[in-house]
């Protein structure tokens, strides 16, 4: 359940020269795209339609009506239950650095807002924050947002982007899988919509908990979704894996997601689906 185990999730262009500053290299097909065009196109490759990662704020802007977002659970932040230290230092310091870099307090942003005038609760993970890993703060925020949705009878949308559990929080991280799913279970019992959007990448403990149990699971073209890491599987079965293995397209084929939706159509898709709730 490690994070950072796919070469594709690393930025492709490292060395920076003046001319490279103008270009973005597509992490999937390695096409050179003008930076301006890349951002205007919502970080979607015009050549291969690969949907690159968005920050949580970009995602909020993409899906919600302008000016309707109100953050919830902003006081919840990372904790260090194990007082974990690894070969490179203290986890507490690493978490602080992630906060500084991203301006976030955890790997997920939670709040309420509107989609075409319809009130919803949303949680959006951000891969920049420790690989979107599932810390106890992450679990706490996702559960609190679910509880808010339950209390106010509002649809809950979770956008995942995660390498899985956060090793530095050990067993407490693993328990967040059970904790978040307990919250989702209560929504199901109360017949409140829960829509899961699995974005690139959604793997390990996040794919094996709340991300996979939506009323509707949707994804974006080319997204990596899976439980075990590609390398671990290859080492276990001593066999090369097919190229499309663990892509959104592969999961659609195997019956685990309902639809692959282009980023530019995501908001409309959600709106159209939510219209079926209590339509009678």
């Amino acid at each position, binding site marked *: 359940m490690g994070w950072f185990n796919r070469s594709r999730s690393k930025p492709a262009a490292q060395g920076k020269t003046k001319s490279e500053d103008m270009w973005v290299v597509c992490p999937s097909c390695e096409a050179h795209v003008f930076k301006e065009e890349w951002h205007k196109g919502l970080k979607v490759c015009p050549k291969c339609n690969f949907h690159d990662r968005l920050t949580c704020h970009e995602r909020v802007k993409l899906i919600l009506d302008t000016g309707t977002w109100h953050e919830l659970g902003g006081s919840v932040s990372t904790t260090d239950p194990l007082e974990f230290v690894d070969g490179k230092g203290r986890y507490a310091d690493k978490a602080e650095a992630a906060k500084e870099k991203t301006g976030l307090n955890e790997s997920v942003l939670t709040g309420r807002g509107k989609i075409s005038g319809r009130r919803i609760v949303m949680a959006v993970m951000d891969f920049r924050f420790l690989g979107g890993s599932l810390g106890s703060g992450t679990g706490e925020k996702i559960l609190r947002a679910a509880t808010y949705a339950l209390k106010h009878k509002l649809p809950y949308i979770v956008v995942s982007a995660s390498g899985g559990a956060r090793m530095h929080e*050990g067993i407490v991280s693993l328990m967040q899988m059970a904790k978040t799913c307990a919250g989702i279970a209560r929504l199901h019992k109360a017949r409140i919509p829960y829509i899961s959007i699995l974005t690139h990448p959604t793997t390990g403990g996040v794919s094996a908990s709340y991300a996979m149990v939506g009323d509707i699971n949707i994804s974006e073209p080319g997204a990596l979704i899976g439980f075990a890491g590609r390398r671990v599987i290859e080492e*276990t079965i001593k066999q090369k894996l097919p190229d499309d293995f663990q892509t959104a397209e592969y999961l659609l084929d195997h019956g685990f997601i309902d639809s692959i939706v282009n980023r530019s159509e995501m908001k409309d898709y959600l709106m159209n689906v939510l219209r079926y709730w209590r339509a009678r």
Partner: protein
Amino acid sequence: MSMDFEKPLVELEEKMAELVKLNENEDVKFDTEIAELEKKMKSISKKTYSKLTPWQTVQVARHSQRPLIRDYITGMCSEFIELHGDRCFGDDQGIIGGFAKIDDVRVMLIGHQKGKTVEENIKSNFGMANPEGYRKALRLMKLAEKYRIPVLSLIDTPGAYPGLEAEARGQAEAIARNLMEMATLETPIVVVITGEGGSGGAIGIGVGDVVLMLSNSVYSVISPEGCASILWRDGSKAPVAADALKLTAESLLELGVIDEIIKEPSGGAHRSYSEALPAVKETILRHLEKLSKVSGRKLTERRFDKYAKIGRF
């Protein structure tokens, strides 16, 4: 298989076996020697096992002679009616289950199956279940709810199987669904970590009202080897990672992740099934008795609260 830190103890045990054999055949008797050796063995075993490092505990938890699910069934249950299949794809042997009778208490027993021989391990995939294992477990848990009998789940796995077919058939979905369904299952669930609690593969049948742990078992988000190779970039740092991961029963009790530790006999559960199993059985029955008085609805409320409060906020 013996573990390095156990060597002095194992050597004494071998010597003892020799003496006992001699005692049978020869005219000369070694009764005093045997008594003395016994005393020595006890003290060494106590000394070794009273302060195992986390990494040594991992080795005990994985010991090839550690009691496995079939041993618990034989040792604790007067009846076991195994039920097979997930009704979708197949019958996984990495997780088994069925109706079981412990004294006069009828339960649905589920759990990971490891083997002691190579053949057994190939059959049960070393306790690494495929999605159909998790789905079979869910089917049986739902049956338990229907029949109003409690669920007893025994955890002992290196992790869910990381294979191509497992992914194709939805390993992630199978585990996720179990987590969700177990949260609202309206019948008591008692979980016992008997050996290795390997990550998502463990918690996939590990959500319960009460989570118990044998004193030399471990429970972790990742194996120490895996953690060492990612965070230390050096697999040989596994002992250090085992320490950092706080994966022992004592640490987990402190972290509020488990409810009670079941003490193993000195020298580990693999040394004496006759001492280890009754303690496990007694503890399970005690908790089942308590939980039997709680309504299904109340159980799920409490279970929710139990998991909602893991983490410090």
